[in-house]
């Protein structure tokens, strides 16, 4: 067994997973999360959460909205690579795809666990409430998750050849690709349109008829930031090279999309006459300002500055701010904007709710690592570079050890 975790390469025959102390810690979090799920299934939703009739949706809903937005990395990358001629971005595509797949699997399980009568989850198949945004969400998100699972079979099949499957997959490639580009637009938008019906309850700083449009924009531009962070984590873990040039192109494009988003957002405030509330100095106004200032304007300017996006530190910092902005935006839609109308103030989650969210996140992290170590997620070139880097590093360490040993020998000799 290797001393360090290494990504899958073609010579690998056995299933492997490299345990490190940090991964064990993640596994502990995951196990706690599983216990919490069991607890929730036995005792219902009331005991493990602080949900009430006034706060029927809170932390978990925020987590789902955020998870799907960040998992937008998959569809935005696929759209660019396969439909808009960014073929060179292919190198980072599978990483983005795996993040997206895992994000959706997590959100779908959270969605089902959040249902009171989860065993009825199939009912929308025959009882159609077409006027509900939830209906659109239900169909698009489950269809897209199925599409992604099937897309994963392409990767799966490279590791475990399966001639019949291969032939089928080859035939359905184009429709899958096309569905995978269309469906996300609808459920991304639907997730935020859910709050359109809360007109009069959602604070005007976040309620808007443009909520679905904002949702699509944010989920599209955040993709590059998620891929950036994924790239840097992969480098730290496996020595996989960071594709600075591709990332630079991606975030530059995101910067442009962010600018359009910002313009839409501000004109929406202006048209609805909400700008005074934004600058009123009230708590909500300030939160919205932070969301837009630190979460959109700052990373946008950083992405637009060539020297910043070309530097490793710059691109990581800007990506972190952009992700923070989206996370805060979803939090504001679900919690901040609704707090006043609940009459109960801001939502205070129970520890079990938080543990559930952390457990799911740990599951995603572990699953990502497992997939990378057992399936061809990274390109062969990347894996080769990673191996070379590792060899270089080991040689350097060996040389260092040899020097120390030699010195000691000299010392003893004296």
């Amino acid at each position, binding site marked *: 067994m290797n001393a360090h975790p290494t990504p899958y390469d073609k010579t690998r025959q056995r299933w492997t997973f490299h345990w490190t102390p940090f991964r064990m810690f993640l596994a502990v979090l995951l196990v706690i999360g599983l216990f919490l799920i069991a607890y929730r*299934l*036995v*005792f*219902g*939703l*009331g*005991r493990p959460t602080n*949900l*009430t*009739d*006034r706060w*029927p*949706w809170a932390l978990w809903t925020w987590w789902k909205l955020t998870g799907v937005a960040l998992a937008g990395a998959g569809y935005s990358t696929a759209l660019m690579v*396969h*439909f*808009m*001629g960014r073929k060179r971005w292919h190198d980072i595509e599978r990483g983005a795809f795996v993040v997206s797949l895992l994000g959706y699997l997590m959100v779908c399980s959270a969605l089902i666990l*959040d*249902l*009171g*009568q*989860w*065993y*009825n*989850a199939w*009912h*929308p198949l025959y*009882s*159609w*409430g*077409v*006027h*509900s*945004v*939830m*209906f*659109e*969400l*239900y169909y698009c998100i489950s269809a897209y998750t199925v599409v992604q699972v099937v897309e994963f079979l392409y990767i799966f099949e490279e590791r475990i050849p399966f001639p019949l499957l291969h032939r089928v997959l080859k035939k359905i490639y*184009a429709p899958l*690709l*096309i569905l995978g*580009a*269309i469906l996300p*637009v*609808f459920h991304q938008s639907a997730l935020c*349109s*859910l*709050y*359109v*019906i*809360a*007109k*009069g*309850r959602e604070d005007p700083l976040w309620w808007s*008829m443009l909520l*679905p449009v904002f949702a699509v924009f944010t989920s599209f531009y955040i993709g590059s930031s998620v891929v950036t962070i994924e790239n840097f984590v992969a480098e730290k873990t496996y020595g996989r090279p960071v594709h600075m040039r591709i990332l630079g192109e991606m975030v530059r494009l995101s910067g442009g999309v962010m600018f359009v988003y910002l313009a839409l957002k501000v004109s929406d405030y202006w048209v609805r006459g909400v700008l005074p509330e934004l600058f009123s100095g009230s708590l909500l106004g300030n939160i919205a300002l932070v969301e837009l200032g630190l979460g959109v304007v700052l990373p946008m300017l950083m992405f637009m500055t060539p020297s910043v996006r070309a530097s490793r530190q710059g691109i990581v910092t800007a990506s972190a701010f952009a992700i923070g902005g989206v996370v805060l935006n979803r939090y504001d839609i679900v919690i901040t904007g609704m707090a006043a*109308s609940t009459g109960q103030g801001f939502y205070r989650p129970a520890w079990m709710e938080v543990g559930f969210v952390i457990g799911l996140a740990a599951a995603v992290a572990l699953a990502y690592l497992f997939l990378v170590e057992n399936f061809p997620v990274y390109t062969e070139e990347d894996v080769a570079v990673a191996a070379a880097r590792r060899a270089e590093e080991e040689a350097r360490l060996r040389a260092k050890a040899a020097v120390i040993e030699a010195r000691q020998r000299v010392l003893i000799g004296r």
Partner: protein
Amino acid sequence: MSAVAAGTDRRDEPSDPSRRRFLKGLVVTAGAASVAATIPQPRKRESPLGRQLAEEHANDPALLIDLTRCVGCGRCVNACKTDNGLAWREDQPARGPDAELASSNWTAVKTESVRGRDGQTRFVKSQCMHCLEPACASACFVKALKKSPTGAVTYDGDLCVGCRYCLMACPFSVPTFEWDKTFGRVEKCDFCVERTSQGKPTACAEVCPVGTLTFGKRGELLQEAWRRIGSQTYKYVPHVYGETEVGGTSMLYISDVPFEELGFRTGLPTTPLPRYTWEITRLLPPVAAGLGATIISLYLRRRKLLLEAEEAEGAAKAEGNAATNEGVRV
């Protein structure tokens, strides 16, 4: 002016009986004086949509709830619980200052701290408002919640998945959830649908001993509401809560204390909430068609380019092969 002052005073210290009588006199005099000044007229429906909804639902069964008459006896609550087989739970009071709707309370009578202009304690009965165009039913993606043709908004627990979007959607925070059950369902007033669909009054209206609850047709009750407001100006605020809120509801409240002071959510839009969402969801088919066409054409264009590139590559390879073959032959 004195009426206002007396009213405020009254709320603060209602205890002294002689003072109370004196102030009551003041209120009556001041009130009578202002009758002549402002006789409220039924507010004209601003929008054509509002008028259309009111006409469409004029014959729907409805309840007029006159809060000035309620004495908080709670017989409506008893009748509701008995009729619908709901439990009495200590943690979910249906009467008193902490009363609120809950999974075992389809209706609740809350004792308010605000007093009426007559100095009496005010009680607010709450239950489902049975909107003319209910947000909950439009939000329900399995159609467990429905607006029945006879006016009631009904719930089918066997169909429900328990997503609680109805709780989010309801502008009056009416639907409640069984948080303490393993498989939680939604609970809410069903307007005694079996009774009201046959023209009979609801269980609560049937037992009300003081005439707070009047069962009838919505159009007629609306007229009655404005008649009461008009005839006793000193008593009522000129607002029928439920007439225009979110497009109108089957429950019509009148009160002598401003509604926001009684915990009613005011400032709600007069457009039915489902219409906001529908403005978006109805765009789904055209957007899907447009987006689909764009994506497919982009894909076909890309494929053509790729095929051409491949062909060129293939041709180059073939040429190269031919060249090597020739070389071998030579």
